[in-house]
């Protein structure tokens, strides 16, 4: 009995010691990471042009992040896929090169095998989703149909997108299928501003932007919000009903595609190969920023509403699940080809 007690005591001491060692290591790792960043310069690659929403959000967050990390931040704008390619291939593996881009473009271009894509999404380290917004189905004010039922009866509707197979166009393709509309997608608009103007003029009948854009477009009389994608109402447009609230059933065939177009926001990423402790440290830093009232105020001014950053681990899991679904790319491609004016 005594021997047993002795064994138990030894085991207990060992457990406590190993716990202390592990905890100490973790604490040391966190401290080491904090120390590593102090006084250094972080390159933040914005995978879109200066002045874009992505760029403006990065520039809004940058001074707060710099203070929290004790670093200097240098923002560098690069063309969309080229930006993530650069981060993936040439970004330093020490945590000092960050990237920012909307997650549905990162994963969408990867699974669609868009020309020039040189990265594998699941190998990127996602730090946070800094703009987890909702997509809104916007219709032209020139359109005679004002309800979803009337829209379903209409013939030859025109949806607008920017680049072929880009996230705006793919979202339209999926929603045309989900809502059972008689519509085609016209791609080639230079950006969301040009698309907004086309919607306002009645050159296209609907577009599906994120809620901040939708809110401004509606306020300025350029478009009318019809429904919110996903299961949760938008924080920016709380009066707009969601797809399930309107009694729309999403069929099993398009369920994964629908889930894909309703997920994601604007993600901060690190290249592969960055030490785990630094990835975790950066994730924690972004979560700490959630409590910064000044940042909340600045983000609310920039985007219309403050939405807390989503933890990087959640985004990582979501991206991995999308990438693992081998049938999704084929489905999205088939839907785009079905409704696009270009085949």
């Amino acid at each position: 009995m005594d021997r047993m007690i002795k064994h138990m005591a030894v085991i207990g001491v060992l457990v406590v010691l190993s716990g202390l060692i592990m905890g100490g290591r973790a604490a040391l790792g966190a401290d080491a990471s904090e120390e590593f960043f102090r006084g250094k310069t972080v390159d933040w690659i914005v995978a879109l042009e200066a002045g874009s929403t992505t760029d403006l959000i990065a520039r809004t967050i940058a001074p707060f992040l710099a203070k929290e990390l004790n670093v200097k931040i240098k923002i560098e704008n690069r063309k969309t896929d080229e930006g993530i390619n650069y981060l993936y291939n040439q970004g330093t593996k020490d945590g000092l090169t960050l990237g920012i881009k909307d997650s549905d473009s990162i994963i969408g271009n990867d699974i669609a095998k868009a020309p020039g894509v040189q990265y594998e999404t699941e190998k990127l380290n996602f730090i946070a989703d800094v703009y987890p917004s909702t997509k809104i189905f916007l219709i032209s004010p020139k359109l005679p149909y004002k309800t979803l039922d009337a829209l379903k009866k209409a013939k030859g509707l025109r949806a607008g997108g920017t680049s072929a197979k880009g996230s705006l166009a793919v979202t339209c393709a999926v929603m045309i299928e989900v809502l059972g509309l008689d519509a085609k997608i016209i791609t080639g608009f230079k950006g969301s501003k040009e698309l907004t103007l086309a919607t306002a003029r009645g050159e296209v009948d609907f577009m599906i932007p994120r809620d901040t854009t939708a809110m401004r477009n509606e306020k300025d009389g350029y478009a009318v919000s019809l429904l919110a994608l996903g299961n949760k109402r938008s924080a920016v447009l709380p009066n707009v009903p969601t797809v399930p609230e309107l009694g729309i059933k999403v069929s099993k065939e398009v369920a994964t595609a629908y889930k894909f177009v309703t997920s994601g926001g604007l993600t901060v990423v690190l290249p592969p190969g960055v030490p785990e402790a630094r990835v975790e440290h950066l994730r924690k830093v972004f979560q700490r920023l959630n409590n910064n009232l000044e940042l909340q105020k600045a983000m609310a001014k920039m985007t219309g509403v403050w939405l807390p950053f989503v933890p990087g681990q959640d985004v990582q899991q979501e991206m991995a699940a999308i990438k693992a679904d081998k049938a999704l790319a084929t489905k999205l491609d088939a839907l785009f080809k079905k409704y696009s004016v270009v085949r």
Partner: protein
Amino acid sequence: MLESLEAFVQGFLNYADLFRFGFLMLGVLVGIFIGVVPALGGIVAMSLLLPLVFGMDKIAALSMLVAIHAISGTGDNITSILMGLPGSGPAAITLLDGFPMTRKGEPGKALGAMMCADTMGALLGVGLAFVMIPIVRPLVMSFGNSELFFLILMGLSFLAILSKESPVKGLMAGFTGIILSLVGLQHSTGVDRFAFGKDFLLGGLDIVPVILGLFAGAEMFQMAVFKETIVPGGVVKAGKELRRQFFAGVKEVFQHKWLWFRSCVLGYVMGLIPGIGSEVAVWVSYGQAKQTSKHPELFGTGCIEGIIAPESTNNAKEGASLLTTLCLGLPSGVAMAILLGALLLQGVIPGPSILTTDLELTFTLIWGLALANIIGAVLCFYIIGYLNLTWLTTLPPRVLVPTILSVVYLGSYTTDNQIAAIGVTIVFSIIGLVMKRGGYSRAAMVLGFILGRFFEGYFFLALQTMGPLFFLRPASLGIIVIIISLYIYRPIQSFMQRRRGRSALEEIAGEEP
């Protein structure tokens, strides 16, 4: 109306506050400094300063950004005229006649005309803003993809006339430019063209490395090969003579007041419409100036009208773009998009509601644009006229060529932070040199290059959104009439002159006994 007038006056009076005026001045100084470095430009400075805007005085912060944007173009034009070193599309067109004027020993005249046209264009922009506010929205809404397509077509129709001697050579150069504009991913279809699997070509060729190569690179190669200076020693007059030239250039703008006014209105209308960048507007303006000139053969050889037209257009356009950004919330370019971000950070939501909530701010910024131009012109006059910057043009090639080429390659690199951009500049330097020696118009190539992609894109969108009869829209028909008028103007004018001459002869013959 009374409220608008009050906001208009108050907008100006806001600069009586020394703090705000100081930030406007700071913006002007940063703009001049940053503008002279190719490709660095106002956009870089505005992006860097954007985070500082948060928490600053609204008018001071926004005026500083507006001033940087307004003046960086002037700084860019100075190097373009003096050294043949353009840092952007609009500066490339000022070079076409500005640089030959420098080589002829008239840099002051070119600079004077450029700055006067710039400033007066901006001032007209202020006046027009007051008139245009009520109609800006309907005007923008009436310009769809079809109208944009015909505006681009108008620009492309000037391809043949841009060549000094041979229209065929002009067309050849122009179509080469159009083909080059097709490099990269086609936006509507997602198909890559002429990219040869190269990552940096997928996004298309950037305008800055191309023009730096075609103009600055080619000139430097030529100087290196033929051991030339920009201006043979002694031809460039400094001091008093330079200042006299400057005022002569200013006077030229008043002597060409109708060209100035026409170019300003053209720029203003094009500036109001999102989707048309400065690059497009200035080339259309240059084309119309050449097409309606009494001596079109002088364009490209140092013709003052070739400076007045694009410069007036460019600055009148800036006032209009600012108005569209503020009143419609629709930025027409990268600089305006950054300004839009700054407005949002200041808690100002641009859009139609600004006319009721922040009309005073709207006029303040438009006045800021004009004041920045006036201050910028005075400062530039001082810098050029009293610091004798023109001595740079007499430097021997062994000093000038490596220095300028270093700046050119640095400018290319900074456009996209890619080494490949330097390669593009070197290739286009060789192409530019060959074109120059062979008498092929580099301007026509740039025009084709800038407009080619717009032409394809707007044609596709007009066809898809409006169907094959898209050209029957009233505004489209109006532009078609303008294009036709531009081309029949000269034959009709010469026909009328011939007829008048004949009847005068007949009268003389009739009077003879």
